[in-house]
């Protein structure tokens, strides 16, 4: 059996007297798409931040590809093969689509000195164009990212997370604010990337239809604890999940 890409063991995090995450443990296998759902304040973002090194857990530990990552800087984590998107739009608005994508990969190529003295595109234009075409943004490659529509920026945001060929991508509400047409495209692109490259995803999402169709497994958090875990159809039928989050 292959080692899990992400392993979270006994993670707890408190803010003052509030326990945001309580003794959470789970693993993410290679190629798996895990949906992380739960009501607002259930601890999803705190858990994400513990994985991404922005918060250090009070208890427990987080391993990526077998390496402990608690307290690691985001740039180091990225070089370990972890990509992410943010809840808010997070592109570089004054840079072109192509430059946004090249930036997302350039730090993985060569040394600091070779990036100064070498090619301006770090030899990444071809790879970046392929990824831009994959996310169907090729007609916008020379446009400033800030001039794109919200949905296009969301797509670019996702594309950037994939440029360095990550083993694990954490997607924080990728469907937020995206219209239905583009949502279907986004889901299809993510599933295709997952199938072709074997990358694992952890997806925080409030859009139930999107996350249920995208994920192979769902974990439900409520008040900082895991209250249910299973395949999407099992979660839909789980009475405690319906009571705590989904409603009737």
């Amino acid at each position, binding site marked *: 059996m292959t080692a899990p890409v992400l392993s979270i063991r006994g993670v707890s995090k408190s803010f003052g007297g509030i326990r945001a995450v309580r003794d959470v443990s789970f693993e993410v296998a290679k190629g798996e798409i895990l949906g992380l759902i739960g009501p607002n304040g259930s601890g999803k973002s705190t858990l994400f931040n513990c994985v*991404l090194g922005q918060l250090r857990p009070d208890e427990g530990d987080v391993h990526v590809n077998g390496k402990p990552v608690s307290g690691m*800087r*985001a*740039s180091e984590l*990225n*070089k370990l093969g972890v*990509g*992410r998107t*943010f809840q808010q739009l*997070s*592109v*570089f*608005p*004054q*840079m072109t689509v192509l*430059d946004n994508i*090249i*930036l*997302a990969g*350039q*730090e*993985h190529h060569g040394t*600091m000195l070779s*990036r*100064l*003295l*070498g090619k*301006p*595109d*770090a030899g990444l234009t071809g790879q970046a164009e392929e990824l831009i075409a994959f996310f*169907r*943004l090729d*007609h*916008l490659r020379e*446009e*400033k990212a800030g*001039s*794109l*529509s*919200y*949905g*296009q920026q969301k*797509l670019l945001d996702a594309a*950037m997370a994939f*440029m*360095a060929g990550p083993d694990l991508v954490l997607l924080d509400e990728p469907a937020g604010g*995206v*219209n239905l*047409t*583009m949502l279907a*495209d986004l889901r299809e692109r993510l599933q295709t990337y997952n199938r072709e490259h074997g990358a694992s995803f952890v997806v925080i999402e409030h859009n139930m239809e999107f996350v249920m169709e995208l994920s192979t497994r769902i974990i439900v958090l409520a008040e900082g604890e895991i209250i249910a875990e299973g395949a999407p159809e099992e979660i839909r039928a789980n009475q405690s999940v319906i009571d705590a989050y989904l409603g009737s």
Partner: protein
Amino acid sequence: MSFWLRPLFLAAMIVLACLAPLGQGNYIIYILTSWLLFSVAAMGLNLTLGYAGQISLAQASFMAIGAYITALLTLAGWHWLIAMPLSLLACFFIGLLLGYPALRVQGHFLAFVTLAFNTLVFLVLRNEDWLTGGSYGLVGMPRPDFGIFNTAKQLQFYYFALAVTVVAALVMWGIVRSPWGRAFRALRENPMRAESLGVDTRRITLLAFAIGSAYGGLAGALVTPLVQFIEPGSFGLVHSLRILLMVVVGGAGFFFGPFVGAAVVILLPEFLRFTEGYYLLIYSALVIVMLAFAPNGLIGIGARLRARFLPLQARGDLAQGSRLK
């Protein structure tokens, strides 16, 4: 500016700069030389502030450090070609140290940290007169002699300063077009996202300060042989503010912004001298009008016009709603 337009613009500027001093008197040539070396200082601040988004009110202090090191070494008999790189290195490492506060504070707080540094350098230069000559400054620094080319005369020194400026501009062009330049812009626009994509934002912040400061040092290394007399008052806070004005008026984050900004700040008051006692009044009013109508600087006007008159593909998509194709 497009890929091909920029080198053409650069070539046109070099030709113009070569022709500008011909037939002019010593004073005009001196003013043009000042424009060149303030362009170098502003280029450095443009990297720190315009590209990397790190506010600094200390660029004149790096000119001072560069100028004083060059002065002390050339007065001790060292050639300018040795004194200049040492000045640059000193400014690079001191700039690196000045960058550390930027890892903890940003915006107004960082502005005050750098302002305090400028004041500190000014006070050291004024009070440590055993080394710096205090308020009397240092005098009599020689102009560099390269054997086949002596810079003793004003016109010769102008071409020497022009050559140094062109080399400095080409190096800066290489930096801002490289992946480092992309990382600097990413730091300015979204540091958290940049870090999440593997950009070591701490290192790139320090480099932005260090390289920007080295350009300040280079400008200082040119000031010394130009004026052959330096004193602390020439590098006070007001001069850092002038360099900041050059960057802002020219267009922060635009490659040619510092040249245009330095031209406005250095040359415009000279053009307005025919108005006699009113020239500073008119100059100040013009700067206010420019900043009010061109907040992205004079170079930024071109980008605004392009955005206004050339429809973007993305805008067309927006009109149709948020669809992929």
